[in-house]
């Protein structure tokens, strides 16, 4: 019975489920440093998921996604360090999380309205403008002394379970690992649910053919702005999750460098599926931390080469391609042969790429 239930699950969900079980069991066997590394990579994975949502699902190639990650990290830091003017006494981690979601979402809302309304920016132009925005915001934060300038803010407290910065500090490797995993799963689930809803379908339609969607009566600018904000909110949450572990935030978290990195993770993992993007982020990070000292300078060469190859030949990404292969294999084994009704068709068509 379980077998039939499993065989009817979407391959993507199945893979996500298996990965989750593995991650849940991992603390039984893994060393604490590996768990600590992974807890941080979970924030990167969530960050990657936010970009996969905005780029893969909604077709908005954002070259400045780190702006929102960074804003979230700064928001969390300012709150927990008691630096928010007027409410210095409020140092609650929970308020920090709320701010880390709200501030980037608001920023994206404003930026989205500016960029998308009326005859909005399309495809490549949107990409280049977000790139320029990343440079601008990084520059602004470097010159903003209140948030510590180039050096940023230090000694950001870890997650404190009490209501206002008192109580148990989440710092031990294993509890922190589960907390980070929980936040990742939470953010992931929100995005996955959105993508499966009708609203998510409409977003995919906007990405696939905007003019058509507009002519069906959709206010596409509004849809894009909202999607952009949701992506930003999740990126901000990831930033907050990052900073409570890293203990510091600086402009290098907000600019082009990290935006470019996350783009590689998502492209290598797979932009079309959340789970592929997350796995891409974790995989690249794990490999980098273990192999970069072995390969030295050739590591970046390898990564760059792999990136080009995957853009040219594997638009689904390495992990995405693997999941897709598994999907086809399962479909074959189920015999029947016909694709089940409503199954998302992952084939990327030219219309997804070309800027209209």
């Amino acid at each position: 019975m379980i077998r039939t239930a499993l065989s009817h699950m979407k391959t993507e969900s199945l893979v996500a489920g298996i990965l989750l079980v593995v991650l849940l069991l991992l603390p039984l066997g893994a060393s604490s440093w590996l768990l600590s590394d992974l807890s941080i990579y979970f924030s990167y994975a969530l960050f990657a998921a936010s970009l996969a949502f905005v780029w893969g699902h909604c077709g908005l190639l954002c070259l400045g996604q780190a702006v929102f990650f960074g804003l979230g990290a700064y928001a969390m830091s300012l709150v927990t360090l008691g630096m928010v003017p007027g409410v210095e006494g409020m140092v609650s981690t929970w308020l920090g999380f709320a701010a880390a979601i709200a501030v980037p979402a608001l920023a994206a809302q404003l930026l989205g309205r500016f960029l998308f309304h009326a005859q909005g920016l399309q495809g490549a132009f949107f990409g280049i403008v977000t790139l320029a925005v990343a440079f601008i915001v990084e520059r602004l934060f470097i010159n903003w002394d209140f948030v510590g300038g180039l050096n940023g803010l230090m000694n950001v407290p870890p997650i404190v379970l009490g209501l206002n910065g008192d109580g148990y500090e989440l710092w031990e490797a294993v509890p922190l690992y589960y907390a980070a995993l929980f936040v990742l799963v939470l953010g992931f689930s929100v995005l996955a649910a959105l993508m499966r809803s009708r609203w998510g379908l409409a977003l995919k339609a906007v990405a696939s053919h905007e003019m058509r969607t507009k002519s069906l009566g959709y206010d596409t600018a509004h849809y894009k702005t909202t999607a952009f904000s949701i992506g930003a909110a999740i990126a901000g949450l990831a930033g907050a999750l990052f900073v409570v572990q890293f203990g510091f935030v600086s402009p290098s978290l907000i600019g082009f460098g990290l935006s470019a990195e996350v783009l590689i993770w998502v492209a290598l993992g797979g932009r079309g599926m959340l789970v592929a993007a997350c796995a891409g982020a974790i995989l690249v990070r794990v490999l980098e931390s273990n192999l970069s000292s072995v390969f030295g300078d050739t590591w970046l060469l390898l990564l760059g080469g792999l990136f080009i190859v995957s853009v040219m030949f594997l638009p689904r990404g390495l992990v995405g391609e693997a999941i897709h292969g598994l999907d086809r294999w399962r479909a074959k084994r189920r015999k029947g042969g016909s694709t089940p009704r409503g199954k998302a068709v992952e084939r990327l068509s030219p219309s997804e790429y070309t800027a209209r």
Partner: protein
Amino acid sequence: MSSVATIVLDASNYALILLLIALGLAIIFGLMNVINLAHGEFLMLGAYTVLSIQMAGGPFWLGLIAAPLAVGLFGLVIEEVVIRRVYHRVLDTILATWGLSLLLKQSIVLVFGPGSHSIEDPISASVMIFGAPYPAYRLFIMAISLLVVTATFLFFFKTRIGLAARGVIANRNMAACLGINTRNLDRMTFSLGAALAGLAGAVIAPLISLDPHLGLGYLVPAFLAILVGGLGSIMAPVVGAAGVGVTENLAATFLSPVYAQLIVFITAVLVIRLAPGGLLGKKRRQT
């Protein structure tokens, strides 16, 4: 206060350098609709070509000739191996060329090391202009830039291939129908754009310290220049480069380098948003 003459000289010097860099970028973008994020690294390859020749004991001038040839040839190979496969996916050209830029940067690190290198000044003399000494080499750069821009104009307006290329800008499908070999044109265009980047890199090499990251510092303003100028005409990058270059230089002169960058970036974003076709651009066909 600096004399007006030196301010004008400095500003036009920077604008002309930017124009030389933006020209190749604009040709590739305008004709092929390829956003080449590796353009900065093509620039760097040009500069390192000069460096290699200097290290082998050759004169700078040989490097100046070799750089566009070498980088042009390299562009031809890249077009065949990478760019050709992503033509119809505009967003993917951004990613592919960006991956390429990573690759090139890292290759240079492996070959020449991550550190800085220096090219010796080929003309160390100064010329007196309005009573102030001005390095002769900077004047030479301005001359080269003007020469190259003029040559490009003549090429596009006075030759048959240039006409064909303009046909492709206007309407790619139509041009293909009329029997223009767009495949060869693409090869030529990309290679030409790369060669221009190589030349620009060679020309600016003596002004700066050479390191594998030098591309980015030029790529971003050059990009803003062509987006601000627009894509519809060959004249557009001239306007864009002048706008971006002069604004940045004047802001640096009268305010500070920190604000100069900010002002240029913010203004450019506003212009791109409010006039998506660029200042000089015709409205692109929405298909």
